[in-house]
């Protein structure tokens, strides 16, 4: 075996030491890591830039749409108000009591031998009903019967259109004065009728006819 002399062992040792210098290695590792992190940062920044562009585009779109949406919301609220108000007003209109049909019915009940001198009617609060005070005179051989006929007729007429109809005499008194009807003298009676009814109540269901068992 040939003898091999290393005369540069000190220089080689120093070179090896330089190569495994921890600071140098550390700096290299740090540099590599820094480069990786920088690349990752750039990638993220690029993505953020993309999102920002999207956001700007969306904001531009929204700024164009927003006034229309606000106007639509305002109009929607306005329409809802109109619908609700109209509904309430229609309810009020529909729940009114019409006096003209009542006056027509009353006029049909007054016979030639009766005269109404006063009518005082009122719609009770919250449309709970109608109350009418009717005063008048009736003449005939039996003036009280003429007044009663008027009451019966009124009860029948009002019962055709209204509910819970009540027609009662408040006063019924004979008068001393006579009146000439058709050339004949007739006695007179003064009456006061109180009528009350409910124009809006639902009609009560008529009871079913009783079945008669036939054997």
């Amino acid at each position, binding site marked *: 075996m040939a003898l091999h002399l290393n005369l540069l062992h000190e220089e080689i040792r120093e070179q090896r030491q330089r190569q495994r210098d921890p600071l140098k290695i550390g700096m290299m590792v740090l540099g590599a*890591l820094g480069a990786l992190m920088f690349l990752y940062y750039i990638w993220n920044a690029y993505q953020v830039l993309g999102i920002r562009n999207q956001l700007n585009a*969306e904001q531009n779109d929204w700024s164009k749409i927003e006034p229309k*949406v606000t106007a639509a919301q305002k109009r929607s609220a306005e*329409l809802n108000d109109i619908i609700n108000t109209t509904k309430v*007003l229609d309810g009020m*209109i529909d729940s009114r009591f019409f006096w003209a049909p009542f006056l027509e019915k009353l006029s049909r009940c007054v016979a030639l031998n009766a005269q109404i001198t006063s009518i005082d009617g009122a*719609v009770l609060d919250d449309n709970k009903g109608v109350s009418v005070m009717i005063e008048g005179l009736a003449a005939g051989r039996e003036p009280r019967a003429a007044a009663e006929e008027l009451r019966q007729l009124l009860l029948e007429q009002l019962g055709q259109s209204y509910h819970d109809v009540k027609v009662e005499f408040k006063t019924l008194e004979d008068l001393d004065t006579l009146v000439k009807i058709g050339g004949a003298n007739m006695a007179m009676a003064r009456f006061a009728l109180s009528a009350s009814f409910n124009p809006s109540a639902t009609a009560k269901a008529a009871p079913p006819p009783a079945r008669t068992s036939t054997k």
Partner: protein
Amino acid sequence: MKKLNLSKDQIQKLALSTIGFVVLLYVYFSFFLGPLSKSRDSMLASRNDIRNKKGSSANEMTKTANLEKQASAATMRYAALTNLSPEGAPIAWFPPRMKIFFSNQQIDKTTARLESNVPYKEADLSGWMRYNWTLDLPQTDFSTLGKAVAELENTEPLLSINHINIHALADDPQFQQVTLSVATAILKR
């Protein structure tokens, strides 16, 4: 296993590298990546928020368009009802209107007095007021009155007669004196 023999100088350098590494990580996350992520998150949230708004706005506009179609009848009806309340104070136009109305029905010298005006309790009628009036018809016959009342009730939907008083005139029982208490819904102007 080969034991790593490090000199003091090497250990110092190693420690310095480690500190440098930690500082690098701190600076990177705190001053670069952290704010960037925060900014990205906030932008994403804003973008999603706008997208949601756009989605709901399309829905809202469709709903409004549908409502507009459905409410056409109500809108026309409402316009007709509001047209019954002219501009100006009701005391200025309601009595003349009643006078003309009854005059057209052959009932002259009608007077209308304002008794009171109150707001409605219903929230939907916050823009309307209830006016209570007394109408005096000094002389009419029953048949004319009946027709006039029927016409009044048909042509004035916002008017309701709450009280009616008819009594025969003492000197001429063929004619009657009539007092009507009416309430009208009038739009606030």
